[in-house]
C-alpha cells in the first residue's frame, strides 16, 4: 500500500488520531492533540440529538440522525471538546446517511453535547467538529461541510464550528492541510499545515503500531497488513489462554472466542458485538484458530459456538500448541483464507460444528472422549 493509499484507510486514520493524542517524543508521529492539551474522552461513543431539536428539524424537512457514533471525542484542558470523524472520502450530494450523520454532529453545540453525554451544566465550554479525510485536490472538500452548516443555521439551529483535516503526502511527510482549526490547535499549524508523520525510506511501510486492530467498516479495505496484524493478535490472545491454562486429564480445554476478540480489539469487541460485521470477524477468527491449533491436535468448535475445544494431555503438548500459534505466517497459510478474513460473502455459521471439520474428523470421537 502506498502512503497515498494509506491515508485513505480508516484503520490508519483512527490509529493516527490516537497517536496524535499520546504523550511521546520522537516516535515518528507528532502528538499535536496531546501538546494542545487534548485527551481521549470517548472512542466510538454515542452522541444524541435532543428529541425536541430532531422533531423541529423534521418539520422543516431536514433530516438528521438522532443517534450518531463519531470516531473519537477529545477533551481539552479548557473544557473544549473536539468531535473527530474519520472518512476515506468526504460525502457528496445523494450521500444521505453520511449527511444525516454530519448534521447531527454539527448540531453538537456545548449545551447539546452536555445533555447528550449526561454531564453537569457547564462541564463543556465549547465544541468543535473536525472531519479527517484524505486530501482530494479535485474538490473543495470544505464546501460539503459548510453547505450543511449554512442549511442548519438558515433553519435557526445553532451549530458547532466545523473544520477539516485533509491528509496528504508532502516531502516524505504525512501532513494535514487544516481548515478552520479550533484556536488551541492553530498555533501548531504552519501555513495551514500540520506536519504529522515522518516517512522512512521508500521501501518501508510507514504504518505505526496499531492500537485498534479492527473496527466495523475497516474490513472493506482489503489490506494484507490489516489482516495479518489482526490475525496475529487473535493468535497471541489464544496463546495467552493456552499457556496459562491448567490441564485436566478428563477435560478438554475450552478456548473462549469472546475474550480473544476482546483482547485483539483492545476491548472494543464487547461494544461492537451487536453489529453485523462482528459475525464475520468472529467466524474468521474461529477458523484461523481451528486451522492453526489443528496442526498439533484436533480442535473443534464447542456446541454453543463460543469456544474451540482442544484436549491437551501434558505440558509438552501445551508448549507445542503455544509455539504453533506463533508460527503463523502469510507464506504457509492459504492465501484465500487470508483474503477472506473479513469477507462478508464467506462468513459462516459459527454454531455449525460439523462445518469446521475435515471429512475424516467428522467421524472421529470428540477429543475428550478418548481421555476418560
Amino acid at each position, binding site marked *: 500500500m502506498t502512503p497515498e493509499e494509506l491515508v485513505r484507510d480508516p484503520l490508519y486514520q483512527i490509529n493516527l488520531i490516537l497517536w496524535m493524542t499520546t504523550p511521546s517524543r520522537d516516535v515518528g508521529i507528532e502528538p499535536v492533540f496531546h501538546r494542545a492539551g487534548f485527551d481521549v474522552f470517548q472512542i466510538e461513543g454515542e452522541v444524541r440529538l435532543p428529541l425536541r431539536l430532531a422533531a423541529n428539524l423534521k418539520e422543516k424537512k431536514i433530516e438528521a440522525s438522532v443517534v450518531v457514533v463519531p470516531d473519537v471525542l477529545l477533551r481539552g484542558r479548557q473544557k473544549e471538546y473536539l468531535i473527530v470523524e474519520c472518512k476515506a472520502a468526504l460525502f457528496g450530494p445523494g450521500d444521505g446517511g453520511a449527511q444525516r450523520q454530519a448534521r447531527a454532529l454539527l448540531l453538537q453545540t456545548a449545551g447539546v453535547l452536555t445533555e447528550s453525554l449526561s454531564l453537569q451544566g457547564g462541564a463543556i465550554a465549547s465544541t468543535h467538529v473536525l472531519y479527517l479525510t484524505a486530501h482530494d485536490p479535485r474538490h473543495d472538500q470544505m464546501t460539503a461541510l459548510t453547505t450543511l452548516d449554512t442549511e442548519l443555521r438558515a433553519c435557526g439551529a445553532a451549530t458547532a464550528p466545523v473544520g477539516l483535516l485533509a491528509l496528504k503526502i508532502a516531502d516524505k511527510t504525512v501532513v494535514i492541510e487544516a481548515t478552520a482549526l479550533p484556536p488551541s490547535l492553530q498555533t501548531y499549524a504552519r501555513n495551514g499545515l500540520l506536519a504529522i508523520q515522518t516517512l522512512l525510506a521508500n521501501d518501508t511501510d510507514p504504518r505505526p503500531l496499531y*492500537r485498534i486492530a479492527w473496527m466495523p467498516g475497516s474490513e472493506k479495505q482489503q489490506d494484507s497488513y490489516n489482516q495479518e496484524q489482526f490475525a496475529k493478535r487473535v493468535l497471541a490472545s489464544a496463546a495467552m489462554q493456552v499457556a496459562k491454562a491448567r490441564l485436566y486429564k478428563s477435560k478438554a480445554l475450552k478456548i473462549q472466542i469472546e475474550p480473544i476478540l476482546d483482547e485483539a480489539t483492545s476491548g472494543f469487541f464487547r461494544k461492537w458485538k451487536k453489529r453485523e460485521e462482528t459475525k464475520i470477524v468472529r467466524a474468521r477468527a474461529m477458523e484461523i484458530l481451528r486451522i492453526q491449533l489443528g496442526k498439533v491436535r484436533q480442535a473443534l468448535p464447542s456446541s454453543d459456538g463460543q469456544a474451540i475445544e482442544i484436549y491437551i494431555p501434558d505440558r509438552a503438548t501445551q508448549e507445542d500448541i503455544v509455539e504453533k500459534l506463533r508460527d503463523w505466517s502469510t507464506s504457509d497459510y492459504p492465501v484465500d483464507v487470508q483474503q477472506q478474513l473479513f469477507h462478508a460473502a464467506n462468513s459462516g455459521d459459527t454454531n455449525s460444528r460439523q462445518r469446521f471439520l475435515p471429512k475424516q474428523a467428522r467421524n472421529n470421537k470428540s477429543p475428550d472422549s478418548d481421555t476418560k
Partner: protein
Amino acid sequence: MKSYLLEDPACASERDFPGIFRQAGHEIYRIDDTLYKVRDRGTKQYVGFVERLLPRHPVIYSHADARSMDAWVKRLVNSSPHLDHLWISGHAFERLLDWNFEHKPLHRYGRLVFQHSSVFEAETPTEQASIESDVEEPEDSDDYVPERRTTRFTMVDRLSVLREKLPTMRDIYAPLHVIAQLRFPAAGSGGHDFYFNGKATNRSGSFGDHRAHVKFVLETYRNAVNKTETEAWRTEETAFNVTGAPVRLRFHDALAQETFDTFIDATFRRKVNRFGLWGDPIRLGPAKVHVYALDRHMWQQLFLEITREQILVLIPRGTCGNSIHRLVTNVQQYLDPAVEVRIGDQPYREFVNVPTGATP
C-alpha cells in the same frame, strides 16, 4: 544467605498463593501471616522460607548453595506464569547508586559489577544469542570466544571515589552504564549485594539489616513499576486499552543491519530467547518490524515496533510494568548499554525514585 526478590503481579490471595508453588511441584507451609516454609517435593528437602514482604512481592530466603538455589528459583519462575524475577536495569541501578552516595557514609566501600555482551554481533551469533542468561557466567574457560564486545568486571572502591570517577568513566566507555550488581554498605561491616535479576546476597552479620535493605529495594522497584503502569496504561478502568503512552528505547548508535536481523531472528524465531518474548514479526521494510508479542514469563501482551534506531513498546492495560523493566535490562545487557529510554515524554530514570519516607 541469599534472598530472591520475586513479583506476583496478580497478587494471589492467601488461598491461591500456595497453589503457585504447588503447580511448580513444591509445597509451602504457613508459619505466620506472611511467612511460609518451602519444601521441594522432588528432593523432599526444605529449601528455605518465603515471605510476602510486600503484597505483590514474595521473597525467598535460603541458606542453600548459591548455584543450586539459583537454578531452583529460575526453574520455579520459568514454570509459573504467576511469578517473575525483579528486573533491575543498569539505569535503575544508577539511581540506587545515587541514593547510596547521598545516604551512606562516603568512606564506606561500594562494590559494582558491570556486565554487557553484544551477543547479537557475534560471527555465528544465532545460537549464542538465543540462550537465556544465567545470573553468573563462568569467568574463564577454554572455549572459543567470538569477537564481539563483552564486558564483565568488578569495581570496589570507596563511595566517594566512585561518585567522583564514575561519570567521567561512563562518558568514555558505555558498558559502564550497565551495572548488573550493586552493594549497599550494611549498617555494620560488610554489605548487601543486589543483582539485576532480583537476587540479593547478605554479606553482613545481620539478617534484620539485610531484610530492611531488601524491603527498601522492593519499595523503590514497586514505586517504579506503579509509575510505569500509570503512564503506559493511562486509562481509567474502562474497557479500552488504546491510549497508553509508548515506551521508547532509542539506541545510542543505530544497530548495524546484520545485528538488527540477528536480534529479530534470535528473539522471535526461537522458543528460548534472552528477551523472553513470543511473537511473529511482520516485516514493514528491511529494518522495520511490528510484533504483536507476548511476554513469555507472564504471558501478557506487548506491542513492539523495532527499527535499527529504536524499539517502541505499547503495553495494554493489564500487562505488568515489570515487562518494561525486563526489556530495558536486557537491551542494556545485550544490545546497547547506553540506550536512552523514555516512557511517554518523560525520561525513564525519573520513574526510578526512592519513595518518600523509604529507608533501609
